[in-house]
Every structure is written in structure tokens, then in C-alpha cells.
């Protein structure tokens, strides 16, 4: 029986199905409790999968050998963001300069504030360097963390937690600031919470989703250049 289990657990297919099934269950659960970002399907799914891996004594590499086929789709999905972006291209064109300025302010704030707060609280250097790219979409964050000497896989996880925090806090922040324009909402979500925020913004409207996708792309580009400079300025790495 145990060799049977090993055989199946080693098959990539098994981990693909585990990932999709767990995600479907988490989505169903999330709808049942009224769609709160606190029980965001991604967070619930990854917690359940981690528990399952530990119960079965499976290491992350084995899981990822199957799950990488889902992970791989992040690439074409990122490219696909061009479609909603094009649908709202006229509005983007009119707002280009404000968007650039907002993106610069937001990206600097995102990296600088997280480093400063964590440093003031006494975080270790590895943690600091893995936190720096936290507002950037996972594939970019992994690259940045590698480059400046953080832990890439920790950076990827912190990016997700940031995304959930963004989705959790954004609605009340928008209410506080009396922001009604879906373009502004989407842009702030995409900048602070990357693809996670983008997926959430699509639930407001396709306009919000498009601006979130745009913010995610711009922030990714900008942060990739910005963080190495910032880290050197603060004397880390």
C-alpha cells in the first residue's frame, strides 16, 4: 500500500489535481461565507495544501514537480493582461502622466516603507531583503530577491500575503478617502497588491481590472530598477 502511495504521489498529475480541487473547494467556501478576503481562496488553498503535504510527509520540491504546470500559466496570463489593458487604452492614454507619477510615488512608498518598518522592529537581513519586493508580482519579486540576496521563495510567499492584506484593507481605505473612480481603485490595488489585487479588481469591473493590470506591469518594471538602488542606499545586501 505504501509503495502504491509513493507511486501516485510522485506523479505530477496528482499534485495538479490536488491544487485545482483544493482551490475549487476554497472558492466554494469563500462564496459560502460571503466572499471575505480574510478567507481568500488562495490563502485557504495554500494553507490546506501545506497541511496535506506535512501530513503525507511530502516535500515542496515533489509538490512543485506537479504544480509547476499550473505555475507555468502565470507567464501567458501576464501576457494576456494586455487585452483588458487595450480595451481601456483610450482612458489610459489620457491619464498617462498622472499614472506615471502615481506609480513612482506608490512604488517608492511600497519598498521604502516595508524596509524601514521591518528594520526598526529588528528584522534579520534575509527577511528585510525578501520583504523589499513585496508589492511586485511574484515572478518579478523572485528575480529581485535573488538579485539583492534575499530568499526567492520567501519573497514569493510574502508577495501573496501582501496581496491578501491589500484586498482586505483596500475597500475600507477607498471608503475613507471617498474614492469612487474604478480606475483609481484598480490602479491602487494593482500597485500595492500585484496580480492578487488585479484578480480582486476584476470583481469590481473590467475597468478596475485593466488599470490594476497596468499598475502591476508598471510597478514591476519600476521596482526592478528601484529596489537594488534603494537597498544600496540603506547599506544592506
Amino acid at each position, binding site marked *: 500500500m505504501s509503495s502504491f502511495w509513493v507511486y501516485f504521489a510522485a506523479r505530477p498529475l496528482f499534485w495538479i489535481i490536488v491544487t485545482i480541487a483544493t482551490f475549487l473547494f476554497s472558492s466554494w467556501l469563500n462564496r459560502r461565507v460571503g466572499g471575505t478576503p480574510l478567507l481568500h481562496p488562495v490563502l485557504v488553498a495554500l494553507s490546506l495544501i501545506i497541511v496535506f503535504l506535512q501530513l503525507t510527509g511530502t516535500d515542496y520540491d515533489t509538490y512543485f514537480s506537479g504544480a509547476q504546470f499550473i505555475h507555468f500559466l502565470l507567464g501567458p496570463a501576464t501576457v494576456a493582461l494586455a487585452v483588458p489593458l487595450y480595451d481601456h487604452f483610450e482612458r489610459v492614454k489620457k491619464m498617462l502622466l498622472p499614472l506615471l507619477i502615481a506609480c513612482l510615488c506608490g512604488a517608492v512608498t511600497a519598498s521604502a516603507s516595508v524596509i524601514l518598518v521591518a528594520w526598526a522592529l529588528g528584522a534579520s537581513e534575509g527577511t528585510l531583503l525578501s520583504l523589499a519586493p513585496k508589492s511586485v508580482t511574484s515572478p518579478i519579486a523572485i528575480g529581485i530577491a535573488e538579485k539583492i540576496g534575499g530568499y526567492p521563495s520567501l519573497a514569493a510567499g510574502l508577495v501573496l500575503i501582501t496581496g491578501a492584506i491589500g484586498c482586505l484593507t483596500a475597500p475600507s*481605505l477607498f471608503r475613507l478617502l471617498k474614492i469612487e473612480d474604478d480606475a483609481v481603485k484598480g490602479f491602487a490595488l494593482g500597485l500595492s497588491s500585484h496580480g492578487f489585487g488585479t484578480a480582486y479588481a476584476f470583481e469590481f469591473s473590467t475597468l478596475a481590472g485593466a488599470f490594476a493590470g497596468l499598475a502591476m506591469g508598471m510597478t514591476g518594471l519600476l521596482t526592478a530598477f528601484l529596489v537594488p538602488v534603494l537597498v544600496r542606499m540603506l547599506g544592506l545586501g
Partner: protein
Amino acid sequence: MLIGLMLLLLCQLLGEWVVLALGLPVPGPVLGMVLLLVGLVIKRRVPDLIRLPSEGLLRHLALLFVPAGVGLMVHAELIAAEWLIIMIALVVSTVVTILVTALVLKRLTRKLDLGATEERR
């Protein structure tokens, strides 16, 4: 559908090549997104064969983050030691980032008065 999926992958591949050739610090898919956007602007519309696979992928964007997220388990020890610092830093920074971004953009676009076309799903 299949042609569209191939075109998405092709844009990604071109993006990866350019990144590799020029040694850019940016991931290939982001550059691929820029390439596809340029293509759509030239074509002046989104052909259905690209729209269908794109919207299919984007509808399930959240699922695609799960495999990377499970990677947190590798850092259980570090997280156990510094989880409070990490959470405080992330919450403070994320809230400040949203506030700054939304306020700057709101302030800058108010003057433009753009007759927003809100499109609800």
C-alpha cells in the same frame, strides 16, 4: 483558441529573448505583455482568437498563485521567529502604499474631468 494561446506564448518567448539578449532586470512575461499591447494598438482591435484564451486565463488568475504560495512552507523556521515583525511591516506598508497611490492619482486626475465610463460586470 489554440492560435491565440500560441500567440500569448509567442509574445512571452519574444519577451524572454529580449530580456536575455539585453540583460534587462525585468521578467520576460511583462515585456511580452508590452509586445502584445503594441500589437493590439497597431491592429486597433482584439481578435476573438486572442480574447478567448486571455479571458479564460485571467478569470482563473488567483489559482495560478497557489503553487508559489505553498513555497512558504520551506521557510517555516524563519517565519516562526519573525512572523510578528513581518506582519506589522506588511500591513503598515501596504496600507500606506494604497493611501499614497490612491490620493496622488485622485488629486492628479480631478482636474482632468474625464467623464469616466464605468463599466460594470
